[in-house]
């Protein structure tokens, strides 16, 4: 390995580190859980709503997720690789669990950094 390889490797690690730290320090505790299927918001609920939820397609359950202790975790899915089940549970703003085969995205949003693409305003 040449010296420039080490420089390249260090540059990449630095970029990854900066990216990670930026994401971590700019993230705040989430307050709402948004569930998207095929890029459509199908449901949303506060992070406090503990319980088990399932997403169905034509009557059959394709994914189950659990909200517990202010974290969301996917517990069951019918996709072939089940990567969504293995993904870490999420709790902070901006974090998401994605099931690409089913095109399901479960993400956490907080009031302070609001995703303006879907709603202009929400009244509570």
């Amino acid at each position: 390995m040449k010296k420039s390889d080490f420089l390249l490797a260090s540059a990449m690690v630095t970029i990854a580190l900066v990216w990670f730290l930026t994401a971590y320090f700019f993230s705040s505790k989430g307050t709402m859980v948004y569930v998207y299927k095929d890029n459509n918001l199908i449901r949303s609920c506060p992070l406090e709503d503990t319980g088990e939820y399932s997403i169905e397609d034509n009557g059959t359950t394709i994914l189950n997720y659990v909200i517990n202790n202010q974290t969301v975790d996917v517990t069951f899915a019918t996709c072939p690789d089940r990567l969504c089940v293995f993904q870490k549970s999420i709790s902070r703003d901006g974090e998401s669990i994605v099931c690409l085969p089913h095109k399901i995205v479960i993400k956490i949003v907080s009031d302070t950094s609001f995703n303006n693409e879907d709603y202009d305003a929400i009244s509570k």
Partner: protein
Amino acid sequence: MQSVNNKKIAYVSLLVAIALIFSYVEILIPFNFGIPGVKLGLANVISIISIYLFGPYIALVIVVLRILLSGFLFGNLYSILYSLCGGILSIIVMSVIKKTNKFSIYGVSMCGGVFHNIGQLIVAMITVNQMKISYYGPILIVSGMIMGLLVGFLSNQVLIRLKHMFDSDKIIS
């Protein structure tokens, strides 16, 4: 822009076949870290040695053929889309990096691994229409680097042994 001859056709077909086997073998190895998109990338060994032995254009042909064939055999339309994006971006970046002559094969393969992941990430972002992939990027960069180093080591070993078959000034090891 290059002449086609029987020798090239034979070599390209052989390499595509070997790359297909590598893709298949990778499916057999359970490599599950719970992070989508982290895989060994064994078929990238073929991509890299193709760039070093035959140049970027033929390497691109080999990669696209391999992805299409393995997609039809083992995958589905979306897996083809992801792999195409990652594979093509990876070949382009690797060829550019190699042309600068400033990096060894390890630098080239690290870039290949990282940009393969970035290409797939871009397709994923477009598919699910989410711009926020906060924590995922760093993971892909680091795993791309590590797998790239491994693939680089394997490619180097292969190239050392194949050196006598081709023009030795085409090969940097």
